[in-house]
């Protein structure tokens, strides 16, 4: 599903990731861990095509990124749900609209969107907050809105960048359960985190990243 081969990415001559090679199979749930600035976010950004690798090759869901036309990027991105570290919620839209936008972009009709979004909000336990605005939500609730937006389009890959960053332990556990549920439905899940509790005893692969390199792989 995701293949990196000798991938390097520079930021102002400084390599953010160096010669990274790994593969993630369809339906897997993997974790990427490491200290801040290790290159976890850069790896995710390359997967969701926000950054281009300077060297090496990347294949996502059979799409070779080096041969991908710019006009095709939106269509690949629709296969990738992203839980952004900074949420990227639209403050002037309510919870429903924040989730629905992912479907509107896909050209779905309002009548179809209504039921589907409510269904997803129910899954993340936010149905009762559909009319609330992001500012009125707690950090955990905002995080669940972002997850709902990421999965509402039924992507084949779900990426999460520090999804439990500022959350308390109970909320973080709830979010982790949600990712497992999503993965159980067949979605490939990649989570970048420096929170050990998130992957401990999960039995999933964990890539340890440091200074832009994959320095180890273990089972969590």
């Amino acid at each position, binding site marked *: 599903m995701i293949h990196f081969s000798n991938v390097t990415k520079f930021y102002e001559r400084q390599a953010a990731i160096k010669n990274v090679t790994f593969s993630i199979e369809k339906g897997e749930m993997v974790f990427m861990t490491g200290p801040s600035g290790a290159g976890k976010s850069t790896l995710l950004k390359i997967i969701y095509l926000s950054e*281009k690798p300077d060297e090496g090759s990347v294949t996502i869901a059979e799409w070779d990124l080096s041969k991908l036309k710019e006009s095709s990027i939106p269509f690949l991105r629709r296969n990738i749900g992203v839980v952004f570290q900074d949420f*990227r919620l639209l403050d002037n839209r309510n919870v429903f609209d924040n989730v629905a936008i992912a479907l509107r*972009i896909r050209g779905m009709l309002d009548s179809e969107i209504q039921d589907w979004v409510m269904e997803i909000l129910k899954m993340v336990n936010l149905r009762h907050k559909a009319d609330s605005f992001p500012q009125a939500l707690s950090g955990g609730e905002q995080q669940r809105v972002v997850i709902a937006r990421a999965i509402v*389009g039924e992507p084949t890959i779900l990426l999460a960048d520090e999804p439990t960053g500022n959350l308390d332990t109970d909320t973080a556990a709830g979010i982790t359960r949600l990712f497992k549920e999503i993965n159980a439905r067949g979605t490939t899940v990649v989570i970048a985190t420096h929170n050990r509790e998130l992957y401990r005893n999960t039995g999933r692969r964990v890539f340890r990243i440091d200074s832009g390199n994959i320095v180890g792989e273990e089972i969590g």
Partner: protein
Amino acid sequence: MYLLYSLRLAIQSLWREKWINLLSVLTIAAGLFMITLTFFVVYNIDLATKRLPARFSVMLYLNDGLSEQEAGSIIAQLKKNNAVEQARYIAKDKALEELKGVLKNADYILEGMDENPLPASIEIKLKKESVNIAGVKKVAAEIKKIKGIAEVEYGEQFLNSIHSIKGMAKAGSLSLIIIMSAGVIFVCYSTIKIAFYRRKEEIETFKLLGATRGFIRAPFVIEGSVLGISGGIASAAAAFVFYYVLFYKVTAAIPILKILVFPFETFPALPVAGLLLGIGGAVIALGRIRFS
């Protein structure tokens, strides 16, 4: 599809910045109204010059002592010229009669003259397509060669002036129309650019969620269209007020202005022009949307 959603986004954005947008609409309307006035002036100059061939004539003064038969032969020769529409013989007596008609109460000027001083002449009307500086000069030169013609007169200076006025008016108005159109496009461009920057973060999120260029552009193009068409409608309203005041109020005081003609096709053309310029401004403002 997403067009309905884009329309909703555009309306929300237009409403959110209603005062700035109103200002833009008024500026666009002012620009389009200036274009209308320019077009009105050029349209009337053009009409006036189009009417010129019907009134324009070339006078041929004949040698003294030429018989009517000889004049008839000259007319026959003239009619062979492709540029000549009609030729009318004016005998000496008839010329004097016509002059007296023109002088009316001032015919005392002619008192004391023993002899009719006016020569016999032929007035020729040229075909429409020959009434231009080059055409008339060519015909005059050809006619001069005919035996029995003393002088050819066609108001060369007048013809030159009319044509240079027409040329200057056309060049000036075209420049003004281009400048004003560029101004209207610039207003739309700036308004849409500001709206785009204001929603930059939202657009970045849309891109990351898989929005296509069409999805991102559509609300802004709709905004540009609405601004343009609103400016067009406002300028059409201003043009109507101008028309009403000029043709119903001013002409009552200055009747000569009744010869002016207002091109009615301007009214529907203004919203269409506004729409196209609005879309143009929006498209330029959005530029090339990049995804990576």
